[in-house]
């Protein structure tokens, strides 16, 4: 995944288009310079998306996170042609979705499953009937539909519920029906539109686990949009942060969690990691070092193998620098642990402490000073 291929291309001194083509080649889903604009009130031009370039590799789970109105929903809907780009190209397995029409577009759509926040199940059809719908639409024979539907019901753990109507199911069960329905035509790509946003935390976990299993077992590429960082942390191998129609940061989820660069990413991370300062510190934080004795507030990120090393103890023993722990958490992104600690040390010893920690592979950032 490339955050800014135009810049990369400029460095490599090749035309930006060539870089974009390269980024999309071999990708399960490719966005190359994609924009979506429409006429707003008073003759203005509103850009819902601008110059989005993103490549999702086959078998990846890519999470796109953004606030409501950031354009993530438009971005997702371009992958199955529910929205069309006004500039750039969107490809699925190399085929141009944005320009596909009629039967060609419907053929692409049958290879792209989609699940929804509010499930969008037909109330008039049973569980089995809902799962059969895409197969009926594809013109499969009745016998094949019955067999496939039964397989899918077992696959998503809805045994015994084939004859129930959606109104008789819990939210988690409804989303399982949605997932089974999306998988019915054996798509290569699954789009998830805030699929867990209407579910309670526990149900969210079981649905995310099901998606991760499906990704692993079927090699299905998943593109999901969400406003919850926890969803990205729990299942996404890659992620992109979208703000005001632009991708501001993208890459492997672990790298972004441990080294967020953009303020929007950091504010999203604040909710799921120990990144936010406790209020009693935040209120006293000064941007520059004041006169007189003071403490430096430092954010320390432990990544990879260092996440489990007792670095603060070693700092105290080897350097004689004492640190106050203000906040912190050890988390897992996928199988990889990482930790975030907010500490304060004597401002005179701050640079030395940071140099020591950096030398041992930790990441540090000075957040400010307190008296």
């Amino acid at each position: 995944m490339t955050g800014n291929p135009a810049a990369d291309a400029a460095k490599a001194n090749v035309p930006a288009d060539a870089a974009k083509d390269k980024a999309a080649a071999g990708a399960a889903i490719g966005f190359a310079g994609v924009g979506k604009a429409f006429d707003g009130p008073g003759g203005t031009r509103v850009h819902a998306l601008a110059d989005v370039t993103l490549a999702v590799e086959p078998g990846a789970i890519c999470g796109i996170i953004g606030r409501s109105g950031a354009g993530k929903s438009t971005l997702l809907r371009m992958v199955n042609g529910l929205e069309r780009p006004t500039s750039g190209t969107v490809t699925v397995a190399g085929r141009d979705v944005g320009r596909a029409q009629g039967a060609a577009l419907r053929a692409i759509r049958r290879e792209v499953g989609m699940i929804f926040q509010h499930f969008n199940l037909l109330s008039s059809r049973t569980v089995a009937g809902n799962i059969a719908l895409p197969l009926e639409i594809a013109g499969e024979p009745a016998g094949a539909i019955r067999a496939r539907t039964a397989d899918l019901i077992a696959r998503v753990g809805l045994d015994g519920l084939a004859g129930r109507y959606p109104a008789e199911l819990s939210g988690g069960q409804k989303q399982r029906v949605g997932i089974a329905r999306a998988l019915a035509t054996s798509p290569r790509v699954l789009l998830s539109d805030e699929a867990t946003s209407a579910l309670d935390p526990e149900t969210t976990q079981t649905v995310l686990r099901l998606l991760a299993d499906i990704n692993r077992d079927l090699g299905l590429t998943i593109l999901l949009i969400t406003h919850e960082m926890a969803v990205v942390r729990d299942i996404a191998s890659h992620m992109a942060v979208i703000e005001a129609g632009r991708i501001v940061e993208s890459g492997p989820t672990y790298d972004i969690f441990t080294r967020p660069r953009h303020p929007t990413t950091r504010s999203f991370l604040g909710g799921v990691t120990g990144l936010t300062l406790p209020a009693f510190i935040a209120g006293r934080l000064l941007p520059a070092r004041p006169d007189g004795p003071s403490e430096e507030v430092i954010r320390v990120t432990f990544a990879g193998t260092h996440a489990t090393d007792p670095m603060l103890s070693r700092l105290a023993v080897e350097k004689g620098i004492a640190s106050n722990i203000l906040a912190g958490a050890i988390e897992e992104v996928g199988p990889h642990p990482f930790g975030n600690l907010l500490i304060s040390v004597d401002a005179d010893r701050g640079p030395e402490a940071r140099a020591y920690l950096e030398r041992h592979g930790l990441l540090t950032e000075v957040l400010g000073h307190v008296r």
Partner: protein
Amino acid sequence: MSADLIPLLWEATLQTLYMVAASTILGTAFGLPLGVFLATSQRGELLSAPWANKVLGLVVNATRSVPFIILVVAIIPLTRAIVGTSIGTNAAIVPLTLAAIPFIARLVENAIREVDAGLIEAARAMGATPFQIIAKVLLAEARPGIALGLTLAVVSLIGYSAMVGAVGGEGLGDLGIRYGYQRFMPEVMAAVVVVLIVLVQLVQSLGERIAARFDKRAPRNRGR
């Protein structure tokens, strides 16, 4: 009421049922597709045809604005051209059908517009054609609403069918006017009214039961 009125009442009831059934079937045959089209042809919708939508919408509104008794008289030439006469049950079916079509079309349109737009999006995402979406999603999901709408239409047609009695149609309305009113036989008028009330009650409760059978939106309507 003397015994020889019973066969008259029975015959008039059958005539009314015939007129209502025929005009409901014909009215649905034309009104259902028209309603589907009206519900799916605005700009950006499945069958996007904004001009045709506007024109047909205007025609539907115009037809519905004409009081039924005026419609019956105004289309006598059309009725003659189709049936060969402007008198009798078959002739009455023409204005009844013509009144039923726009009425049923609007009821069907409303029922279809009640269907969650998310379901249309889901079906489009599955690669469904517009006609598959109409057949498998919109009509299937709108069935409870369409059943209630048709119930309303049948009840209205029972009333209209009595009105055509005044202008040469047959049936219960004709019986009530000729015997009850012109021959001063209030007991016939009362009998006609009672039969009409019973008919409407039967149609209404049957329609509601069918709608409830179709409606799977709430667990209480499981129907088993």
